[in-house]
Structures are given as structure tokens and as C-alpha cells.
């Protein structure tokens, strides 16, 4: 059924349709509307067969999910940014134990400096923890990916992180098609655990593993994710048949058939990029877009195939590997058979900075002209940066950087002299 609702509410509806059994939640912007929506459904009785637990921290949230999942319940939680970091130990624990928990990460920047707006630093910080990571481009896809996530995770006994851009998607009202309970029930069978805490058949879960077997256990975790690469495309096809639309899959290409330049990106920014690319195509530029939906496991073969005929690749990413450059671009480079120098990292949108068609068009033009640097920070205010560096050169006690920049910007009142 078509609805015009907030992204968070679309996700809440999707989760509710998946018959979750234990939902544990700790509030953090910008995911709160999701769990509030679910909490209300449980409390009012609209969502039955579900325990909703208000936990005291994100660490507790993931831990409650671990206990619930190990005891055979379908478990769900949501977080962002600082919250994801706070539960990091438990995040690794969940994937290490092979528990099919589903978690929404409403992508938000990680401090310091504290920032509540969107970028991908939170999800990227956990990219190697063993969770499957899926990124939604639209609220429709966010809704759909959660439904796919439960089945994917339970089939593989792996937890799945569904990422959606905080505020940009979570707080945006747009049209979504919400499936019926019958449709979801047909797609998603009840959870049948591979391992479960059951008094009738006692097992010990979580024993220490020494050097004799640790390599093998970790190899199997890697192998499981590799298996996900095989399953995901097929299931996207099944999903299309069952629900009537394309959602999920490993990646999708847009106007790349004869593209000399391919722009790679993840998440909602793909929409703005596609609009920009359409304008450039009207001017005759041979440019296309590759959207990555499944970031972990990294779809190496699929990306390689998609970028095969490109002369240059521009990766627009909302993430930064401090001291190195791009994160997504580093992953893309592993898949590109051309020269590594032809893969450019454009760091954009950090901390919620708007990514505009105009700025993108400038960067794509530079790429065409061969003047694009290996690493570019989109829309960087160089003057502001220079002022800070100059201040640091002049005096030892130069003060906190963030406050100084804000003062320069006129956001914070000037220091009285």
C-alpha cells in the first residue's frame, strides 16, 4: 500500500511486518523515531508476540539482542554514530558468535567534534567486524532491505546492518509502498536457529578458542560472507518477483554502458549524482553511476565487471580514512583493473555538509579534464583551513580547533579582548 510517511516510520512498519520477537532500544539521534514507532506498536498491542525493552545503553542494547537471539528469538535494534561505537565490543561478539541480529544504523558522523548529521563514518568504523552491511538509496529501499536482511541473516547465521542516511532519509517524507503481512510472511519464514540455548538440549556457546582453531573459525566467518555474495543477487531477484520492485542486490549501474567516467557512491547521494549525470549526459558527456548496495561483503567481481570499460572512476564518499584518504575508494581500487591512479576519492558531505549538483558537476568536469586530484575534499573552505593553520603556527596555546573555526565562521560569539 502506498503511503507518504517519514523514512523512520517506513522502517518501523517494515520491522513490524517481519514479526520481531525482541526489540531493544537506546535513544540516539537520528534513529529514535524508528524505535519510538516500534515501541508504540508493541505497547498499543498493534504488534504482538514482541518484547520491547528500554535498555540503559547501546552496549546493553546489542547485548540484550545477543541473549535473545542465542535463545532463539528474532532480535532487532537500531543505533547511530556514538552509539554504534559504544556497542562495538558487542557488535564483534554478535558476528563472532554467528547470531542473525538485524540492526538499523541511521548513518551519522562520529565525534569529536560532536555532530548529529549524516555521514558514513559510523558504519565504516565497523566495516570489518563481520556483519553484513547494506546501504539504502531511498526510503523504499530502506524498508525493503530490512525485510531482506532478516532472511539473509537467518539463512547464513550472520548479523546484518542496514544503513540509511541519518536525517536525509530517516527524517524525509517520501512515498513508499508498504507490503502486506501476507507478502512478508510468504517471504520470511519463522526463525530456525542453527544454535540455541535450550534446556532440552544444553550447549555451551562462547567458549574460548585458542591458537589451535582460531584461524579456522575466522576463515569460516569470511567464507560465510563470501557465500552471501552468491545469495544476495538471487534473492534480489526473488524479491522483485514477490514484491514487484528492484531493491537490494549487490550494486546497480546507471547509464554506465558506454561511460568513460563512472561515479561510484553509496546511499542517498546517488539520487543527486544521477540528476547531475543526467544533465551532463544532455551535454554529451559519457558518464555513468555505480551504486553499491552491499558494502560488506565487498562485491569485488561485480564491481570489477561494472567498472571494466571505464577510463576513470570517481568515488564520491561520505567517509574518511584519516591519514589515508578514502575508504570506499580504497575498496573500489581493489576491484579496478585499470590504473589505480584512475580511481579518484572525493570526500564529501562529512558531518552533513550538503552535496550539491553544482559542486558535483565541477568535480566531474575536473575528472573529465584530467585535473582531479587523487583525494579531494568537496567544497572545502580553504581560507578557513589556512586561518587555523596560521593560528597554530603563531602560538602554542592556539585553542580548540573546532571552537576556533566556528568563531571564524561567526557562529560562535567572538572572544572578548
Amino acid at each position, binding site marked *: 500500500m502506498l503511503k507518504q510517511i517519514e523514512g523512520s516510520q517506513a522502517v518501523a512498519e517494515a520491522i513490524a511486518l517481519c514479526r520481531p520477537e525482541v526489540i531493544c532500544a537506546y535513544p540516539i539521534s537520528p534513529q529514535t523515531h524508528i524505535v519510538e514507532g516500534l515501541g508504540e506498536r508493541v505497547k498499543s498491542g498493534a504488534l504482538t508476540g514482541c*518484547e520491547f*525493552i528500554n535498555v540503559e545503553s547501546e552496549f546493553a542494547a546489542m*547485548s540484550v539482542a*545477543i541473549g535473545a537471539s*542465542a535463545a532463539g528469538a528474532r532480535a532487532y535494534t537500531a543505533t547511530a554514530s556514538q552509539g554504534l561505537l559504544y556497542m562495538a565490543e558487542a557488535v564483534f561478539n554478535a558476528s563472532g558468535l554467528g547470531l542473525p541480529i538485524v540492526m538499523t544504523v541511521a548513518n551519522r558522523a562520529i565525534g569529536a567534534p560532536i555532530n548529529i548529521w549524516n555521514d558514513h563514518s559510523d558504519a565504516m568504523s565497523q566495516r570489518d567486524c563481520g556483519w553484513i552491511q547494506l546501504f539504502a538509496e531511498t526510503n523504499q529501499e530502506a524498508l525493503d532491505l530490512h525485510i531482506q536482511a532478516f532472511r539473509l541473516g537467518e539463512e547464513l547465521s550472520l548479523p546484518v546492518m542496514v544503513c540509511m542516511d541519518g536525517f536525509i532519509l530517516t527524517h524525509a517524507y517520501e512515498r513508499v509502498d508498504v507490503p502486506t503481512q501476507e507478502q512478508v510472511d510468504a517471504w520470511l519464514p519463522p526463525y530456525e536457529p542453527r544454535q540455541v*540455548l535450550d534446556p532440552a538440549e544444553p550447549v555451551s556457546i562462547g567458549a*574460548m578458542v585458542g591458537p589451535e582453531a582460531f584461524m579456522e573459525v575466522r576463515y569460516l566467518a569470511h567464507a560465510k560472507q563470501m557465500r552471501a555474495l552468491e545469495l544476495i543477487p538471487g534473492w534480489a531477484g526473488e524479491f522483485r518477483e514477490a514484491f514487484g520492485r528492484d531493491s537490494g542486490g549487490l550494486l546497480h549501474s546507471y547509464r554506465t554502458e558506454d561511460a568513460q567516467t563512472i561515479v561510484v557512491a553509496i546511499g542517498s547521494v546517488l539520487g543527486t549524482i544521477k540528476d547531475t549525470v543526467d544533465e551532463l549526459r544532455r551535454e554529451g558527456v559519457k558518464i555513468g553511476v555505480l551504486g553499491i548496495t552491499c558494502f560488506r561483503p565487498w562485491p569485488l567481481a561485480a564491481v570489477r565487471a561494472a567498472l571494466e570499460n571505464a577510463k576513470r572512476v570517481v568515488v564520491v564518499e561520505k567517509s574518511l580514512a584519516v591519514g589515508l584518504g578514502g575508504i570506499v575508494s580504497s575498496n573500489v581500487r581493489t576491484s579496478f583493473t585499470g590504473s589505480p591512479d584512475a580511481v579518484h576519492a572525493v570526500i564529501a558531505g562529512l558531518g552533513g555538509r550538503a552535496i550539491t549538483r553544482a559542486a558535483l558537476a565541477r568535480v566531474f568536469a575536473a575528472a573529465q579534464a584530467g585535473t582531479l586530484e587523487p583525494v579531494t575534499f568537496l567544497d572545502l573552505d580553504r581560507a578557513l583551513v589556512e586561518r587555523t593553520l596560521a593560528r597554530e603556527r603563531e602560538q602554542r596555546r592556539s585553542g580548540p580547533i573546532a571552537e576556533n573555526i566556528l568563531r571564524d565562521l561567526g557562529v560562535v560569539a567572538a572572544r572578548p579582548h
Partner: protein
Amino acid sequence: MSFQPVKFYQTGTFTVGNRLLAENERSVQANMQRTNSLNSGHRACQGCGEALGARYAIDAAMQATNRQLIAANATGCLEVFSTPYPETSWQVPWIHSLFGNTASVATGIAAAMRVKGRSDVRVVAQGGDGGTTDIGFGCLSGMFERNDDVLYICYDNGAYMNTGVQRSSATPPAARTATTMAVGAEPGNVFGQGKDMPALAMAHGIPYVATATVAELRDLEAKVRRAMSFRGARYIHIFVPCPLGWGHAAQDTIRIARLAKETGVFPVFEAENGEVVSVSKIRRKLPVEEYLRPQKRFAHLFGKPPSTEVIRRIQELADRNIRRYGLLDAQGATP
């Protein structure tokens, strides 16, 4: 073959073979049908108080729940010595997740049981003092506050033993640990710190809080059984000496635990909804010195000259416990 009749003179007490008692009065451990939840073969040290306490506690919990029990365990000695790869000595469904989240994991298990209509299955969480009073405190407080249906058992040996005897917030004043060495002006752990975990549990107003020691194992079993008769958050704090960490003889574990109770160092009581409802009285009060002397972790108090002032302060703390909990009857004077 002729039989030598054996006359039992102490049939009224619990010291002589439970076979002489009525079925329902026998200890769980004396029962041939006990579950051996923590089975033999684990790698605990000789004389480990925690292994003793856990064996009694979990078997009692199994009996009280008709064997419908799931256990969550914190990282620590108990977890490590009970699951040496590739073996496990647990015969109950058991999960070890992390160091600080055991109470939350237990909450999750309890929620799963409830949602699946299996409220007959009960949940016990267990951890050492470090995993309970320090790193696990946030999650524990959350579980208490929500009144989740979990029995949390803390095995308190007063330090992070598994990592080499480091100080925790349960380490008593003046005790030597690897991070509170017996050197300098104030050797050992300092005064004026520490968490009274049972009192903190009571402050949450949860249905049942109890303390116990491995010197009175029938009492321990009874308290676990009583705890299982409640629904909601419950806490049992068990005093478990550690021969290795405390520096006492392996065979003295139970004796040291008894001394802790008889000196007033460790009050033994039960509380419901935040109020003390029963107290296990001291039978014969002893000075704290009797408790401190056998332990090398307090050896620096008995040098030349002895640290009489420190011992006096420890005595003061014990006397405060006695006052606070009413641990002495009129008869319980020093002999």
C-alpha cells in the same frame, strides 16, 4: 562377612550423611539425582571457592526450576576454567558473551523465553566481582531497574583473579593486589573506596537480595531456591575465597569464609524489596585478626611492627557491619 554397626550420634545436624534426613531436607548436592551442572573436569585451582559456590548454586537452581534453566556467564575465572577449549564442563545451556554485559544478555534470554511462551524456563546470570561491580555495573543496574526476570549471582573473591589478581571495587581495604601493592605509606588497597554491592542491589528495590558464603553451603542452596520462588530481578552475592589470590592454604577456603562471617567482615543476610528481612547471626564473634592472619594478601599488616592502626580500622568496619545488620545476639559475645 560381619558388619560393624556404625552409630551416628549427630543425626540432628547436617554434618552426618543426608541419608538420615527426610528427602526434602537433604542438600541438593547429597542427592543422587543432582544435575552436576558444573561437571567435574573443569580446570579450577585446588580449593577454588568460586567453583564450589557455582556447583552448589547452579545445581540448586536446576532443582528449583525443574531443570528449566539457562545460564549466562561473564568473562572471568569461572568462564575460563569451565570451558577450556575444546571442552565444556557445563551441563546446562550456557552462554558466554562479554565481560561487562552478562546481565543484559540474561535479560535478552529471559525476554526470548517470555515471548515464546516459555516462562517456565528461568535465567541465571553469573560473574565475578570485577564483572559485576565494575565493568558490568551499568548493565546490572539496568537489569535491576527494569526488574527483568533474572537471578544474578556474583562470586566475590575481591579482585580480578583470572588476569593476575588486580584490584576491583570489591577489593577490601589494605588487601595486597597486583595493582595495590604492599608498598609505600599506605600499603595495599586504600581505605575509603569500594562498592557495597548488596546494598546497591537493595537500593534498586528489587524483590530479593541475599548474601552467602561457601562456609554455609546449605544456606547458599536455600537462598538460591528462595530466589527462584520470586519473579523479577534477584541478586545473590557469594563470598568465595581464592587460595591463589589471597595467599591462603587450599584446604582453608571454607574456614576463611567462615571467619569472614564470624568476624563481621562479611554480613550474611536476606533482603526483599530493599529491606533486610533476615540475618544469619554470628555464632561466636572473633576479632578480624583471626580472619586476616591466614591470608598472605594481608601479611604486610603483621610485620615488625604490626599495623595496629590499620587492623583497628578494619575492625571498625566489621563492627559497623555488626551494628548495621544486627549480626550479634546477646549471646554472641567473644568467648
